[in-house]
């Protein structure tokens, strides 16, 4: 192993002053338990304990048909529900060799980007709150509400949509879909400078995040840290670029890369991704073909041919991989989700060691953890 990569080995001591952060703690965003060893205010080591919300989704998938699995994937990373749905849908479509209509691809991409912005909204809100700036929470959620209204109009639900399905979409999007997206982009472009004024430029915020929790590129690769957290370290891991799916190879966008790998860079990646997603949305609305077709022809019962299938998608938090072993029946024989948060979270120990307890909160906020995705 190269020297740049730090290891995760923990040396325990009987005299350790252990604090249990969680399972119910305001800054762990869910039922994550962090066993934090303190030396005064300084963190000696962090041991994450997970499994409080383990629902056995992989096991449940073995008893569900491929169409039914969609609603389970919603509940893994509930903030990027569309991307999760699309992962399974793409896998089934690729395995069966189904070509979905062009329009569906555009709609899916639009939904992905909307969902990414909504997810980053919530992250921004919660990150500010982790650092003690309570007002950010309301500004972020206020703007996220606009996206949820678009979702609500088209799918009837705001968080868990189950809208993307193998072969296309559940039904057509609302006729106002394009108009609403453009309205939102216009609205949010006006509000984004406010985010910068309130938090990004703030001297306290910068002092709290710059140089905190530095993750080198090598560490990011070695620990499999993907998504905005990995790109903050310069690890080019955007699946939309390296293994394009859907319509992404025909759209122009930049992969946001920062190189310092501290909390501030991870923050900036997400802030820039919101801008990038808005650019994508404008392109998509511009190019989206007219029409009403929303699904390819599919048999009512989906059976994958025997074999193994693998699909990578980029969620708001990183790379989601779906791995299916099929035995030719209508249920998968084995279904595996490689969730981005799972790998991201286990860097908490190597990032948080030697820093203050307040920094640990800043780091876990900047990694943007969603606990149900870790436990699955």
């Amino acid at each position, binding site marked *: 192993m190269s020297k740049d990569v730090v290891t995760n080995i923990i040396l325990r001591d009987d005299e350790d002053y252990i604090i249990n952060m969680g399972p119910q703690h305001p800054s762990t965003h869910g039922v994550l338990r962090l066993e934090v060893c303190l030396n005064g205010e300084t963190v000696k080591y962090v041991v994450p304990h997970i499994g409080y919300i383990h629902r056995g989704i992989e096991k449940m998938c073995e008893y*569900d048909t491929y*169409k*039914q699995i*969609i*609603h*389970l994937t*919603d*509940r893994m990373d509930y903030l990027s529900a569309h991307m999760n749905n699309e992962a399974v849908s793409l896998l089934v479509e690729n395995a069966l060799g189904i070509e979905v209509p062009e329009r569906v691809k555009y709609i899916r991409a639009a939904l992905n980007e909307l969902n990414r912005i909504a997810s980053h909204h919530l992250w921004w809100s919660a990150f500010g709150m982790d650092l003690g700036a309570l*007002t950010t929470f309301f500004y972020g959620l*206020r703007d996220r*509400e606009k996206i949820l209204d678009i979702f*609500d*109009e*088209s*799918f*009837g*639900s705001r968080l*868990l949509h*189950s809208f993307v399905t193998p072969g296309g979409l*559940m*039904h057509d999007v*609302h006729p106002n879909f394009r108009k609403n997206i453009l309205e939102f982009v216009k609205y949010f472009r006006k509000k984004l400078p*406010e985010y910068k*004024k*309130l*938090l990004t*430029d*703030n*001297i*306290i915020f*910068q002092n709290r995040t710059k140089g905190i929790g530095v993750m080198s590129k090598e560490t990011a690769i070695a620990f499999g840290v993907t998504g905005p957290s990995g790109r903050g370290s310069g690890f080019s891991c955007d699946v939309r670029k390296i293994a394009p799916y859907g319509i992404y190879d025909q759209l122009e966008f930049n992969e946001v890369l920062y190189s310092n790998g501290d909390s501030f860079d991870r923050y900036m990646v997400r802030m820039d991704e919101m801008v990038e997603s808005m650019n994508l949305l404008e392109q998509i609305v511009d190019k989206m073909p007219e029409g009403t077709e929303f699904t390819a022809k599919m048999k*009512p019962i989906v059976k994958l041919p025997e074999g193994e299938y693998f699909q990578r998608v980029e969620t708001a938090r990183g790379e989601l991989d779906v791995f299916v072993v099929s035995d030719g029946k209508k249920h998968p024989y084995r279904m595996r989700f490689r969730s981005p948060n799972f790998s991201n979270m286990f860097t908490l120990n190597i990032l948080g060691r030697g820093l203050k307890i307040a920094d640990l909160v800043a780091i876990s906020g900047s990694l943007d953890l969603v606990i149900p995705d870790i436990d699955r």
Partner: protein
Amino acid sequence: MNSIVKYFSEIFGGVRSLLTGMSVTGKYFISPGEIVTEQYPENRATLKMTDRFKGEVTMPHDENNQHQCTGCGICEVNCPNGAIEIIIKKVPNESGKLVRAIDKHIYHLSMCTFCELCIKTCPSDAITWGHDFEHAVFDRTKLTKVLNKPGSSLKKKEAKS
């Protein structure tokens, strides 16, 4: 000397960034028109869900207390959570022959995850989304609903032209 300049420029930069931040909150403080709160129980009259809102699964009945459910059980099979149970009975039709009809279409709202598969797959469009969202009850058994109204019957299909 340089370090002193840096020291003071740091202070002034910091204070300026703090003041810009305060200008944002201050701006909202003096513009109460930006308030986005929805006063929920009071605005019940004006609160309108979107057309596609997924509140609960319902079975529309027409004025003759007739529905379209044939009791084929496709929704039951498609439900990933077992939230739908269909109890079948045999009823005589006009010619006196016993035919299938639903006795009870039981819907467990507590188990429903609103994935829309039942509605999507229903061949006779018998069930649809209701817009009611106030589902809170004190007793969990109340979340188990019978969708077909008592005494209802299957709507006759118009003869195909």
